C-alpha cells in the first residue's frame, strides 16, 4: 500500500462524513446507498478503510461537528466495520455492522417518507453477506456459527418497521425475500411460514403493488417450498409465475427457476423440450427425460446416481426418484403396444412374466411377486386401468384408455378414484412463448 499521510486520511474521512450527511439531509437514497455497501469492495470504501486504519481516531472527527454527531451512532460502528473488514476480521466486522444497522433502523423509523428504501435494501443485503462470511470464520475456529441467525433476527425487525400503512410497506416483500435466503441457507425453511403468512394474509399488503423483481423472487422461494412439500400444483403455479415474469435476459435466474420447475413438470407428466435443457445448461435432466419417454428404468436410476450430488443439493432428488412409477407405466405401455401389433385381441392381457423379462433385459432383477406389487400400485394410483389376477399371474388392462395420462395433475397419492382426465385450466393461461417449452405426455404412440 502506498504511503498514506495523516492529512490525506483526514481528508478522506471528512469527505465521507460530508457525503453521508448531505445525502441524509437531502434525502438522496441513491447517494446514501453507495456509502453502505461494505462488501462491494468499491475503491472508494477501500480507500476510506485504509484512511481509517491510519487515522485511528475517527470518532473524534464525528463528535467534533454537531451535524455529523446526529448520525454518529450509525457511522461510528460502520467505520469500525470497514476497518475490520479491510484487515479480514470478519466476525468483528459483522458485529460492528449489526450495531450500525440497528442504529440506522432507528433513524429510518423516524423518516416519514420511503426515501431511504434503497439504502435499507443495501443494509439488508450487507448484513446477510457479512453474516455468512463471519460464520465461515467462526466455523474455521471450531466455534458455533450463529451470525446468520442474528442477521435473520435483524431482518425481522426491519420487516416490522415496514409493515405499516405508509409508503414504506412496498419494501416488505424485498425484505421477506432476504429473510427467505437466510432461512434457506440455514436449512430452517419452516421459519418461512410466518413471513409468508404476514405477506399473504395482512390486509395492509396488496401483492400487486410490490415491484415485479421482488414478486418473482418471492414466487421462486415459495415455489421451492411447495416442491419440498410435494404440493406440485401449487409449485407449478408459483414457479411458472416466476418464470413468466422474470426478465428474459437474466438467464442465470431463469435457469434457477427451471431447475425446480422441471422436476415439478415431470411429476405432473409434462416433459421439457431438449433445446430448453441445452439452452439453460440443465443437462442433468436429459437422461431423466429420456427414461420417461422410453420407459427405461435402468436409465432413470443411472441418471439419479450420476447426478446424485447435484440433485441432493437442490433437494429435488426425492421428487425425481418418485418418477419411477411413470417409467413403469411407460414400460408396460410399450409392452402393450407391441402385443397389440402382434395380435390385437389378446393385447390387453399382459403376463407378469413378460414384464419380468422386459426388466431383465434392462438388467433389473425383479421377481414376479415384486412385479405384481408394482402392478397393484400402478392400478391403485390410476396409472394403469385394469386389474391383476394373483392366481394366473396376469394383468388385465381396460380396453378403454388403459394408461391414463397425468395431464398436469400429480399422481394420486391417496388412491381416491374419481375420473381425473380433465385438462388443467392453468394450462390455458400460459402464453404461447412458454407453452412451447414443454410437451405433454410421455411420448408418441
Amino acid at each position, binding site marked *: 500500500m502506498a504511503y498514506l499521510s495523516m492529512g490525506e486520511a483526514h481528508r478522506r474521512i471528512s469527505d465521507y462524513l460530508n457525503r453521508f450527511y448531505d445525502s441524509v439531509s437531502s434525502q438522496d437514497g441513491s447517494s446514501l446507498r453507495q456509502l453502505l455497501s461494505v462488501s462491494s469492495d468499491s475503491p472508494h470504501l477501500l480507500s476510506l478503510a485504509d484512511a481509517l486504519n491510519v487515522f485511528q481516531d475517527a470518532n473524534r472527527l464525528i463528535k467534533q461537528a454537531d451535524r455529523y454527531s446526529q448520525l454518529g451512532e450509525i457511522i461510528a460502528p460502520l467505520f469500525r466495520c470497514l476497518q475490520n473488514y479491510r484487515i479480514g476480521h470478519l466476525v468483528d466486522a459483522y458485529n460492528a455492522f449489526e450495531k450500525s444497522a440497528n442504529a440506522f433502523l432507528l433513524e429510518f423509523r423516524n423518516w416519514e417518507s420511503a426515501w431511504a428504501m434503497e439504502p435499507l435494501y443495501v443494509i439488508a443485503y450487507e448484513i446477510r453477506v457479512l453474516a455468512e462470511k463471519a460464520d465461515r470464520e467462526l466455523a474455521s475456529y471450531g466455534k458455533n456459527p450463529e451470525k446468520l441467525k442474528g442477521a435473520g433476527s435483524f431482518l425481522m425487525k426491519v420487516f416490522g418497521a415496514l409493515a405499516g400503512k405508509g409508503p414504506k410497506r412496498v419494501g416488505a416483500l424485498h425484505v421477506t425475500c432476504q429473510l427467505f435466503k437466510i432461512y434457506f441457507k440455514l436449512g430452517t425453511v419452516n421459519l418461512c411460514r410466518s413471513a409468508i403468512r404476514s405477506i399473504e394474509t395482512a390486509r395492509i399488503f396488496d401483492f400487486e403493488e410490490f415491484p415485479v423483481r421482488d414478486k418473482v423472487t418471492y414466487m421462486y422461494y415459495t415455489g421451492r417450498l411447495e416442491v419440498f412439500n410435494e404440493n406440485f400444483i401449487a409449485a407449478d403455479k408459483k414457479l411458472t409465475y416466476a418464470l413468466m415474469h422474470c426478465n428474459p435476459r437474466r438467464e442465470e435466474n431463469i435457469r434457477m427457476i427451471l431447475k425446480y420447475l422441471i422436476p415439478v413438470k415431470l411429476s405432473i407428466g409434462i416433459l421439457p423440450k431438449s433445446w430448453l435443457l441445452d439452452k439453460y445448461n440443465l443437462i442433468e435432466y436429459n437422461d431423466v427425460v429420456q427414461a420417461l419417454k422410453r420407459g427405461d428404468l435402468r436409465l432413470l436410476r443411472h441418471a439419479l446416481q450420476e447426478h446424485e450430488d447435484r440433485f441432493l443439493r437442490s433437494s429435488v432428488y426425492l421428487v425425481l426418484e418418485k418418477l419411477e412409477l411413470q417409467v413403469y407405466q411407460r414400460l408396460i405401455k410399450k409392452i402393450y403396444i407391441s402385443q397389440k401389433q402382434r395380435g390385437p385381441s389378446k393385447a390387453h392381457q399382459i403376463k407378469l412374466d413378460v414384464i419380468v423379462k422386459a426388466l431383465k433385459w434392462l438388467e433389473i432383477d425383479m421377481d414376479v411377486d*415384486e412385479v405384481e406389487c408394482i402392478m397393484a400400485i400402478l392400478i391403485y394410483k390410476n396409472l394403469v386401468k385394469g386389474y391383476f389376477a394373483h392366481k394366473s399371474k396376469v394383468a388385465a388392462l381396460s380396453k378403454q384408455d388403459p394408461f391414463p395420462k397425468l395431464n398436469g395433475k400429480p399422481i394420486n397419492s391417496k388412491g381416491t378414484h374419481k375420473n381425473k382426465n380433465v385438462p388443467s385450466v392453468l394450462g390455458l393461461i400460459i402464453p404461447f412463448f412458454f407453452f412451447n417449452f414443454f410437451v405433454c405426455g410421455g411420448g408418441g404412440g
Partner: protein
Amino acid sequence: MNKSRRKARMSSSSTEGKGLQSNASGEAEASKGGSIRGRSLEDEESHRSIESSHVSSTSPSTIGTCTLMCPAGERVQREHLRDLSVFERLNGHPGKTSPSLAVKKFCRTMSTKHVQESDVRPLPVLRDTLCYLLNLLDSSEQPFEVVHDFVFDRTRSIRQDLSMQNIVNDEAIHMYEEMVKFHIVSHHKLLCCNCNVNISSMYYLNLEQLRKSLSSLYGMYDANRKSSTISKNESEFRSFYVLLHLGSNSQSVRLASPILKSKELCFTRKVLRSFRLGNYYCFFNTIAAESSYLQYCLMEPCINELRILVVSCINYGGYTLSPYPLAQLSKLLRMKESDMKSLCIACGLEISTNEAGNKFLPTKQTTFHPPKGGFQNYSFLGLERLQRHTRVDDSRTTNQAS
C-alpha cells in the same frame, strides 16, 4: 443386562470434564455432500430452553460441583413437600428419601444466571446417574409407563446439566446416544398402549424429547468432527431421524457424503424410496433383512400404515374371480396369518375360506375403510430375533388410568 456391564460400556471414551466451547444443539451448516429428507432441525423452542441451549461461544460455562444424583437442598425440600417419586422413596415412605435414591428433577424455569455450582452435577456424576436410571428400566417391577415417566424427567435433567456446562465431548455424545435409545424404545412401547389418554400425551411428549435429543446429538457430532471422520455411531443415529419422519413430506436435511454412503443410510434410503413409491414388496423385504430393533421401533407407525394401504390396494385392483390367499398376503406383509385376518376385518372386509380350510381375501369389496380405534399392535415376522435388546414383557403396561 447388569449394572457393571452397562457402566463399562459408558466409560469407554477418553476425555471427560471440560468439553469444547461449542454449542450442543441446533442445525449444523451444510457440510460437503448431499441432502436427504427429514424435518428441519431448527426447533424454535430450543431458542429458549436450556437443555439445548444456545450458549454463545464467548460466555463462560459453569462447572458443577454436586457430587450426588440430587443436590442436597432439593432433596431436603422435596422430602418436606412429599414430592418424591415412587422410585425415590425410602422403604416406600412418601416423605423420606436417601442420596442413593433421590435424582435431580428437571426444572423448566432455571436460568443460567441464577444457578449455583453446587446444584449442578459434573460429568462423572451425570454418567453414574444415567447408568442408574437406565438400569431401572430393566429391573423395576413398576408398570412401564411409570418407569418411563420417571426416567423421562430425570434424563431431561441430565441433559439440562450437560448443556449448562457446555459439555459436548465424546462422553456426552455417548450419553446422549443412550438417552435417544431410551426415547426410541419408549416410542415403541407407548404406542402399544395408546388406548389410555394419559399415555397418549406421554407419547407425544416423548416424541418431542426424542426430536430434541437427536437435534442436540447431531450438533455434538458436528462440533466434534475431526477432518472427515465420522463418529462411530453417527450413521446409525442419523438414520433415526429420517426413519422417524418416513411418512411426512418434510424438507431436506443435509448429510455429509461418508454418512450417505454408510450401510445405515443406504438401508434408510432404500426403505424411504420403497415407502414413497408404495413398493411394499421391497419395503418389507428390506426391513426384514437389514433393520435393527431401534430402526424398527421408529418405522412401526409407517409399517402399519403401509399394511393398511396394501389391503386397500389388493382389494381395489385384484380380480374378483381370484381372491388373494391370506397366507401369501401375510407373508408379504410379514404378519402372522391371524393378525392378517384381524387387520382385514378391522378394515371392514370379509375373509372367505375354501374346503381345504385356506383363507382368502375376496377382492372388490365395497366396504373398505381404514381401521378405527388407533394403533393395532402387530408383530413383524422375522424381527423377533432383535427383541432380546430389552425385555418385551409388555404385560406390565396397564390399560387403565392410574
